[in-house]
């Protein structure tokens, strides 16, 4: 900051009343964040699956992936959660698959880390996101507290499909990012 600007701002700011930092704003308490996450995600236009066990998740995946010709997969997704599909660059793949770092129940949000690669989160028209039950938190401040010690270059908070109402006020999906977002809950994974 130039000394001149700093001095101008300092002189101005000191004249203003400082109410101090506020204590946290009150939030509703969610007894069942897992169910809440699913509900909110669906409200936002996403899809939500909660297979009973790993085998069911795998069976669901194979059936789901049959509708696609190609995929791009984040390096964080273990082999057990990769379907048998041809891989393609994110620019061409029909399906992107990733693993969320955290999810936020109150807003139906999946938090994606840029270290898994960003393009697979954004460029394919369909995005499948795995989320471990242990990584679901109730609200956004709690999520940010957990994220703060280890911030990547970019975190993406995805709460549903890409949408716009800029054309005559009519909602359209898949404007730039994925038009279809599928989130699947899984049991804790073994560390890679």
């Amino acid at each position, binding site marked *: 900051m130039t000394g001149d600007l*700093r001095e101008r701002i300092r002189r101005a700011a000191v004249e203003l009343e*400082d109410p101090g930092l506020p204590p946290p704003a009150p939030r509703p308490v969610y007894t069942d964040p897992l169910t809440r996450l699913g509900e909110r995600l669906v409200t936002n236009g996403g899809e939500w699956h909660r297979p009973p066990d790993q085998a069911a998740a795998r069976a669901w995946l194979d059936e789901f992936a049959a509708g696609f010709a190609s995929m791009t997969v984040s390096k964080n997704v273990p082999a057990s959660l990769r379907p048998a599909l041809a891989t393609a660059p994110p620019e061409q793949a029909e399906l992107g698959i990733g693993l969320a770092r955290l999810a936020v129940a109150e807003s139906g949000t999946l938090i994606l880390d840029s270290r898994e690669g960003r393009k697979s989160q954004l460029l394919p028209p369909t995005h499948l996101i795995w989320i471990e039950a242990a990584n679901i938190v109730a609200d956004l401040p709690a999520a940010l507290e957990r994220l703060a010690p280890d911030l990547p270059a970019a975190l993406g908070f995805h709460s549903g499909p890409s949408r716009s109402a800029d054309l005559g006020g009519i909602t359209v999906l898949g404007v730039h990012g994925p038009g279809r977002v599928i989130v699947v809950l899984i049991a804790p994974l073994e560390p890679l």
Partner: protein
Amino acid sequence: MNIEPIDYRTAAARLLAERPDIREAITRATLAKEDRRREGYADIDSEAWRDWASRLRRHVLANLDYYLEQAGRALEANGIRVHWAEDAQATCATVLSLCHERGVRRVVKGKSMLSEEIELNPALEAAGIEVTETDLGEYLIQLAGERPSHIIGPAYHKPLSESQALFAERLGTPAGAEPSALAAAARKHLRQRFLAADMMITGANAIAADTGTIALVENEGNIRIGTTTARIHVACVGIEKLVPRLTDLGTLLPLLSRAATGQRLGNYVSLISGPRGAEPEGPDEVHVIFVDNGRSRLLADPPAASTLACIRCGACLNACPVFRQTGGHPYQWAYSGPIGAVLAPGLLGLERGWTLAQASTLCGACDAACPVRIPLSGLLRLWRERAAQAGLEAPGEAPAIRAYARLARRPHRFHMATRLLGRFAPWFGPLVPPLSRWLRGRTLPLRNRNR
């Protein structure tokens, strides 16, 4: 130097006479968003959240020098280059020199009102750089050669038929194509622009001073994509847009989203804390340009400084019954509605901006909507007062008020005058302003009619 004030009235009157379809589109969009905001406020303790946000933002303003220094250090520590720009010209010059030094030919942009304020696009285009707006509404506006008419929805004023015609002409979509088909055509076209872009330019919804993190909220994913594919990301940010802590975003961004569109959170949030470094994808360089452009002067004006608490949600525009008739174009600069009307004299100067403070009934709908409790109607009144002190008023207003006050000090004459006025106004009204202006479109009551 003689500065022409913004003539909202003439522009508004023309729009109402010539473009009733724009009025319809704006009314429909703003009423819908106003309903959504109410729903969004309804499932939180919105009063407490608004108190929280109001206090947070005022605390930041009262310590702005401290948080700017802290943010500057934290951003740099993250490998983000920080620049400071005094005004619009300096900001554009900074962007241009980055472009020249790094051989940038193609720029994509995320929606940024600050870039409208500093008129960045014309500056880049004049230097031969291709600029593509990527927010769908903003892209539409760029194709049409217009300016955004709303902080959040740049194309709220555009009837669908106009968008269809524009896309047919520019992107070759079939006449009368469905919105989904138009969006698909835009997606295809803009995807190529993203992949070919050298630089992505965005604003910022906030910067967390403690971690040096840039927060961007959107619904389409264009900002996420642009800040992934371009090799350089430049964020132009007003100096006031800080929050002390990353965790503050956990309440501020949901409140912003609720106020703007009723969403619990915008569908995409980017928290950017550096260039890609060793990561597989993302920009090699990230730059933040902190822009003053009149803000420090407004900060030094305690009665009006709370204007800088604004988080640009557009809720006051949606709530404003005046804005609802005309949209933002008659305000004739980047910011419109109540916040635009109090920012105009603050940032553009009283002589240019005072007229916008008249474009309000002081109904207070904006005060009730603002998520950070900016006392908008009080500020509108403040600027009216300052305008009056500077001799800037609607023609004949000061003498009229003086004459009225003189009369009101003499009760006997006052009661006589009301009686005469009430009885005869309908007859002589057409000849005498301001009654003649009242009679444009309205009748005067007949005093003796027994109601």
